[in-house]
């Protein structure tokens, strides 16, 4: 029986293939709980989980909160606008103050890449889970995306996965690239050259394609990323109209992918920009299944950082 030996889950880059597979298979078990009438098990009863979200979130925060509650943990949500961060309290001081209240897990989303390593060093007896740090990683998203793909195809090995959009600013892309390439998929990236980070092809079995067409041709999975208007300046692309013309997914170009290809998106979606509504709501879309898997995956993560002993 494989063991999960990490105190924290900060980056898929830091996990082995086996560890990722373990997290995914536990998530599959957790899914069963989520389909019961009484969606609760006592596994993490008595544990305290603090959700510390410095950035806006709908899916991830709600998902982590539900995941914690379904495992019977005591969950607390802190957001910056209502915390002393508005009074200029540093991350370091916030962490130390929280530590004094003895949480078992802190789930944090933060705008600065690497903040979780910073936190982990200061909180040696608390598990840190990354709900997204800057442009670095979003491991729970990567895992739920992979689980969704595994559900459809039964495997990740040998899949052709296209990721299209603003790769430079995307932690979702980075986590997916790390996880997918470790598990044997090949990743094809497309996006405006202004949004393609240098050396990204060195991260694994990754190909940078000149056009979107090249990337999604015969793909098993087409994952679209949101154009992050709040992260980039206006200089990276002329406007959203140009963007959707050359990098948007629509009913015509989605046909370039395999007939049984999956369409995915981490959300939130700019309808009509990176994807037309037809595709968002169409048969090939697995977007809502991603969200459903999100709870199970996060339950798996919380479970394993606590030592993983199912009652």
């Amino acid at each position, binding site marked *: 029986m494989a063991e999960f030996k990490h105190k924290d889950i900060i980056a898929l*880059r830091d996990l082995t293939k086996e560890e990722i597979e373990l997290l995914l298979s536990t998530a599959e078990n957790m899914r069963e709980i989520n389909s019961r009438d009484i969606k609760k098990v006592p596994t993490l009863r008595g544990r305290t989980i603090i959700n510390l979200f410095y950035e806006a979130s709908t899916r991830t925060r709600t998902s982590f909160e539900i995941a914690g509650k379904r495992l019977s943990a005591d969950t607390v949500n802190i957001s910056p606008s209502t915390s002393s961060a508005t009074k200029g309290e*540093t*991350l*370091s001081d916030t962490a130390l103050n929280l530590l004094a209240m003895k949480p078992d897990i802190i789930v944090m989303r*933060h*705008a*600065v*890449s*690497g*903040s979780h*390593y*910073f936190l982990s060093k200061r909180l040696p007896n608390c598990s840190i889970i990354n709900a997204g*740090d*800057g*442009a*670095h*990683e979003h491991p729970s998203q990567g895992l739920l995306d992979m689980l969704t793909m595994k559900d459809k195809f039964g495997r990740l090995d040998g899949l052709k996965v296209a990721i299209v959009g603003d790769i*430079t600013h995307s*932690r979702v892309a*980075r986590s997916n690239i790390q996880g997918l390439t470790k598990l044997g998929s090949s990743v094809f990236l497309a996006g405006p050259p202004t949004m393609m*980070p*240098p*050396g*990204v092809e*060195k*991260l694994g079995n990754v190909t940078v394609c000149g056009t979107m067409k090249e990337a999604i041709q015969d793909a098993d999975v087409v994952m679209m990323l949101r154009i992050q208007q709040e992260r980039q*300046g206006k200089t990276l692309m002329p406007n959203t109209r140009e963007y959707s013309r050359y990098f948007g997914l629509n009913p015509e170009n989605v046909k370039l992918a395999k007939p049984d290809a999956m369409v995915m998106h981490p959300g939130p979606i700019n309808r009509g920009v990176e994807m037309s509504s037809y595709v968002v709501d169409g048969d090939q879309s697995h977007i809502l299944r991603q969200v459903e898997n999100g709870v199970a995956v996060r339950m798996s993560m919380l479970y394993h950082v606590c030592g993983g002993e199912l009652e």
Partner: protein
Amino acid sequence: MNLLIKGGRVIDPSQNLDDTLDVLVENGRVTQVGKQLAAPAGAETVDATGKYVVPGLIDMHVHLRDPGLEYKEDIISGTRAAAAGGFTSVCCMPNTKPCIDNKAVVSYIINKAKAEGCCNVFPVGTITYGMSGDRMAEMGELKESGCVAVSDDGKPVCNSELMMRSLQYAKGIGIMVISHAEELSLVGQGTMNEGFTSTELGLKGIPRVAEDIATARDIMLAEYTGSPVHIAHVSTQGSVRIIRDAKARGVKVTCETAPHYFTLTDDAVRGYNTNAKMNPPLREAADVAAIQEGLRDGTIDCIATDHAPHHQDEKDVEFAEAMNGIIGLETSLPLSLGLVASGVLTLQQLIEKMACNPSNILNLGRGSLKAGSVADITVIDPDKSWVVTEASLASKSKNSPWLGQTMKGAAACTILGGKIVFNGR
């Protein structure tokens, strides 16, 4: 005070000297350099056997943070760190609070250094009033009150017309302009070099061209106006190439680089290490190679540390929030000696970069052990092994990427105007 420095290997590029010799210091000046000198009565002897004896080292790019930011460093601790590093002179940059744009601040610095410092402090004044980048500072007054150069270091002068006028005006006054060459619109929110490491760490990158473009601009303005310009902290292969070509064309450009640019790459940032965060940022292996080649072929004239002390509260934070800069006065010598050990520079070339050239470029009247010179002398123990720790550093701030590492080489004795100000670790 009289000193006899005996039996050391005296390396003085100004006299083309490299020999085992004695150096006699009387009344604060070098009076004799020769074989088997006799010690006059009352003279203290410094045994320099197995050591190098060189003109006092000069660091032409140091942030002393005084006045205004004394919690990071001040003139006393900064010059103590300099002396511990083997430096007898430093040039302090003007981004203090208030900045060095008027004679009152210049006088304060010069007087405090004379009264309480351990080395010569030559202030660098600002190019623009208040470092606003808006209009020129009174460079005439700055020069007269004791500034040896002007710079807005920490910031570039963004407006090209103002930079051109500043170069012209400074030439007229007879003061060197030291340029912090950075095209800010390309830097944006970047926190480290743009490259594979920044991609993998998910950090916003600063492309090399941000420096190259500004270096090219400043050189072209210098060329057009016939003014000299000194490019600070060169870090990229592009800058080196542009400067090399310009020198070949006869442009009056000089430049400096810092030890971290010839020893570290952006890999040092891995782990989100804020002690590897500075501006310009650490670059890639090809840039390090180009910097070393630039030192070797004379394109890069000086080694200057850009000693930038920051308080723990400013560095012990998330990477993007950390202030830019690392200290360097105490680690420069062993790291620079490493260039000799690896064959990039001869010892004589090293001393040129660390003493003679800075003195010549800024007309400091130092960098030589010729008879009659002010006795600013550094005795170097090239084999001294020591560990960089918070306790072993004299600087108030400890923001160094080399914490915990063992260095080879240190000043055995730093002599300022004939007086021993540092007597070895």
